[in-house]
């Protein structure tokens, strides 16, 4: 396999992101009009200036007309993509490749999801594919819940200690989200509250689960050499890696639910594309897919932020806090920013856009923006069968 990547060939020159939350009064059209308008304004262009569009949505629209109709695009190519909860990242990845190929001078990637119209708790899959009824019916929370005891057993972390570690991750993300005006949940939550919340699945409690929100985020991409025509502070795409797993974890008795091989592989590819050899010291920050607290714990190790078996100690030491050595989810993550499926991947890029350009509000500004590189990680699916995206952007060429 060779993954050449498109390092420094494409730049992000404008971004937009709605507030995430329960938008009872807005539909998907309203949300994507809001995010794309912000992104176009931020790049100083109009909708007709953009050559091609990609829209990521898992369940809020079919076809490119999800965007062309509400935005009233005339004779534009619009592609709808879907890749589970990594849908938003997939929209940006494909738009970036289109620009890098030379096919277009500019492209806009937008992710949108309207999940709160279902009337149900949690995410409700859009899939209505006829089945034979033998497929699993349990929730994502239940699947991810299995990772915590598995990790604890393998590395000798007792139940109480693990409870504290997971709560600490949730606490951090709520702390960060409380400082983010776009986040769904803007309150700090005490460790006691987190540990005493109602059980959802396995050992996971309410505060171990990400917020379910409506929202949209968008990015304008152009060729890197054109970036300064739009902004003095572009972000350059350093790496875009994607792995669709073969779902063997739930068929292979050797898999033990203490790591996600799809994420490890995507990270390896992304680091190679970007030339990153020591993510812990080279990355200024990371946005990772904290759909459930055990996921964030395992991701630290899969992406090399911590040695295998040690991430839980780093969590307790505050390594990934806003003021820590490697801030993770400084915008609050899925936990407190909320998780509108198709928008989340682009929302992660939005935080790198704010932080690496120095635009993040002071109360949640990271300390190491000068490292110049930020990582986003976006997964879809379950332990044992998932897709994983890892992207890296930087504020300088080279």
């Amino acid at each position, binding site marked *: 396999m060779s993954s050449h990547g498109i390092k420094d060939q494409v730049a992000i020159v404008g971004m937009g992101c709605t507030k995430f939350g329960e938008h009872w009064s807005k539909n998907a059209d309203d949300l994507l009009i809001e995010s794309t308008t912000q992104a176009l304004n931020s790049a100083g262009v109009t909708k007709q200036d953009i050559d091609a569009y990609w829209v990521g949505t898992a369940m809020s629209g079919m076809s490119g007309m999800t965007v062309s109709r509400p935005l009233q695009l005339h004779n534009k190519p619009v592609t709808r993509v879907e890749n589970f909860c990594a849908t938003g990242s997939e929209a940006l990845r494909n738009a970036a490749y289109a620009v890098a190929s030379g096919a277009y001078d500019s492209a806009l990637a937008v992710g949108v999801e309207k999940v709160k119209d279902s009337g149900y708790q949690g995410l409700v899959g859009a899939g209505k594919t006829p089945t034979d009824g033998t497929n*699993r019916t349990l929730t994502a929370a239940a699947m991810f819940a*299995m990772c915590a005891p598995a990790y604890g057993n393998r590395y000798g972390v007792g139940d109480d200690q693990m409870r504290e570690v997971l709560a600490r991750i949730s606490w951090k993300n709520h702390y960060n989200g409380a400082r983010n005006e776009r986040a769904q949940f803007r309150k700090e939550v005490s460790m006691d509250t987190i540990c005493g919340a109602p059980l959802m699945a396995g050992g996971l409690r309410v505060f171990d689960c990400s917020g379910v929100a409506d929202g949209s985020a968008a990015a304008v991409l152009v060729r890197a050499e054109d970036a300064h025509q739009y902004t003095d502070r572009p972000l350059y795409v350093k790496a875009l890696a994607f792995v669709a797993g073969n779902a063997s974890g739930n068929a292979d008795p050797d898999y033990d639910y203490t790591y996600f091989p799809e994420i490890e592989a995507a990270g390896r590819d992304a680091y190679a594309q970007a030339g990153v050899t020591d993510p812990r010291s080279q990355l200024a920050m990371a946005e990772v897919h904290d759909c459930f607290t055990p996921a964030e714990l395992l991701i630290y190790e899969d992406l090399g932020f911590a040695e295998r078996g040690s991430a839980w100690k780093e969590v307790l030491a505050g390594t990934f806090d806003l003021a820590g050595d490697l801030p993770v989810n400084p915008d609050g993550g899925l936990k407190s920013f909320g998780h509108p499926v198709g928008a989340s991947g682009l929302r992660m890029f939005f935080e790198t856009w704010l932080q690496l350009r120095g635009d993040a509000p002071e109360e949640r500004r990271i300390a190491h923006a000068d490292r110049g590189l930020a990582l986003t990680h976006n997964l879809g699916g379950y332990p044992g069968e998932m897709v994983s995206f890892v992207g890296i952007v930087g504020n300088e060429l080279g």
Partner: protein
Amino acid sequence: MQGILSAAGYVPYRRLDRGTITETFAAGGGRGTRAVAGYDEDTTSMGVEAARLALRAAPSGAHPRTLAFSTTTPAYLDKTNATAIHAALRLDTDVLAADFGGAIRSGLAALTAALHGPDPTLLVTADVRDGLPTSADEAAGGDGAAAILVGSDTDGPALATLAGEGHTTEEFIDRWRTPGDNRSKVWEERFGETKYVPLGEQAWNAALKSAELSADQVDQVIVTGAHARAIRSLTARLGVDKSKLADDLSGSVGFTGAAHPALLLAAALEQASPGQTIALVALADGADVLVFRTTDAVGTWKPARAVADQIAAGAPLSYGKFLTWRGVVTVEPPRRPEPDRISAAVTGRTEHFKYGFVGSKDRTSDALHLPPARVSRVGDAVDDMEPAPMADVPGTIAAFTIDRIAYSPSPPIVFAIVDFDGGGRLPIELTDVNADALQVGDRVEMTFRRLFTADGIHNYFWKARPFPAGAQGKEGSSA
């Protein structure tokens, strides 16, 4: 000559203490317990479980040519229910599978027909017995299943052969249920008694005569039926010593309707010695008496899972849960969508996995695939797999979780990653489980269940359940 080659009962895991009915309503109930089908069980799924046990304990050369399924509470009308059992047992396509449905009497009638031969026949009977809260049927009824494999000398050694029989029939209104009703109604019981007792005596005497026996030569007598008063009266007139009367399981399982004669016969065979005479007397719209003579083979026969062991392995169920499972009381469901109906077309392509739990095994790497796959997850093999039947392969829990938010007819769902002995893994729902006592490393077996019903279509598939106490699965064993 037709004989019984194998037999098994199936008693579901849950028990309702009849006293809890009395406590709740200050009426009804009584002493002892009744067996209760799981919320994910029906007569078809329980029939599968009984049939699996019977076939597991059958002579290796015995292959049924006919599958007869009898129940008063079929999962479907119009559509044959025996076909799902046929599929779960992975019987050949050219085996006839048909229902003998409707009346309590159909269970023993189907057994009698099978004994008249000539084909090797698997009789499967199952019932779920309902009644209105506080009714006699609610308390006295029980849920369960039984399967009896009948065949000739060429199919294998018989455990018992038919020595004689007697049958009487009369039309009278004692107990009835209109299709669509969820309960039966009964006439004033003394009227039925006046009908049943002479019918029973006539059949009994005819059976003894055809077996060339006197009453005192019978070693064990099983008397059963829905009419308790008539049973008591008849039993007193049979001329057999009380010590020869079999436990009719009314105190532990309850009366399992069409399944009960076969269930009691299976239980009797499990405890029988060679050379015994066993009489089975059943009252239902007449009387049926079958007299069996056990053979030497019964002395060495090893039942797959004795009825007595299953009764001992039960666990209590609250009356509230019982009423919920029976649909008498509807409780607040999780706020999650209910499942869509399954697709007949998709199911038509996956019958071997869905009903037979057959995976596939890569011939090169031995990698096991559940559900079966064409492309191996190991190596590059394509379409180089052999079928891997997994329904009787024990497994070990590698991880588990309790899902409090997923849809289930009886939340919460307990789900486990099950690693099967010899290879293969599947995340699968657990049932008949006490979640608080569950641990990684626990041993489980597969059981055929009804996952849900949507648009009237029942979704049958397999779940895993902890091995009952006393039947701990050993690595590499199937029982």
